[in-house]
């Protein structure tokens, strides 16, 4: 079977594996990466959203994306997909600092959080420098 045909089939099977631009126009889950070391948005940071499968305790990849020039990544997930569960946002911060010619203490940052009321909106910022980071639940 050709590689092209395999890719085509994969696209039908892994329907939840979307790049962020396609996933949802009004995502109930948003993020904002800020480079507090320099005082600029964390632009072009690769990230991924995962959901824990409660029966297997394995992480399912939902979305991959990259922050824009403002450090945001619209379209992470649709309201329908956003079921109550444990989720993980992973930020490739090590690669980000490397692209700026810097080292960093953290190779990546993973934030694991629980969603029980999926009718609300959740804003999960990441404020990071080379040697620190913080996050909070915003709206």
């Amino acid at each position: 079977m050709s590689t092209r045909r395999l890719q085509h089939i994969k696209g039908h099977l892994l329907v939840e594996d979307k790049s962020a631009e396609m996933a949802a126009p009004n995502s109930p889950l948003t993020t904002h990466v800020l480079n507090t070391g320099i005082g600029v948005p964390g632009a072009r940071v690769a990230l991924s959203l995962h959901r824990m499968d409660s029966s297997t305790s394995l992480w399912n990849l939902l979305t991959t994306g990259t922050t824009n020039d403002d450090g945001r990544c619209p379209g992470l997930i649709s309201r329908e997909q956003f079921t109550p569960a444990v989720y993980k946002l992973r930020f490739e911060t090590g690669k980000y600092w490397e692209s700026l010619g810097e080292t960093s203490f953290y190779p990546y940052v993973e934030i694991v959080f629980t969603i029980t009321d999926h009718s609300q909106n959740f804003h999960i910022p990441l404020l990071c420098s080379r040697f620190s980071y913080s996050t909070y639940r915003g709206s």
Partner: protein
Amino acid sequence: MSFKPQENPLTTHVLNTSDGVPGARMALSLHRLDSKLVIWNLVTVGTTDEDGRCPGLIASEAFTPGMYKMRFETGQYWESLGHTSFYPYVEIVFTIKDPSQRFHLPLLLSPFSYSTYRGS
């Protein structure tokens, strides 16, 4: 766990910023990445004391360069205080290149936020 008070290359301090108290009696664990197998090996299991600290995380001899992970059972902690929390646990992954230095990894924590930094 090794108890060598004069050799504490890696320390932590959990602070409950919501109540303004140390994060006492929180379960935590330290892991090291096996770079060949790409799996996490458990190094130490512990619980923070009344001051939110956990001495004796790792001995100098065991503290080799590599990727480490500190996992804090924050969800269980907030539950024991009768609160819910946004985060079921917190994992902080960090890289040690020069293990002759001292590394202090505090965790400042509330039910809906946390922060960490590399201290000394």
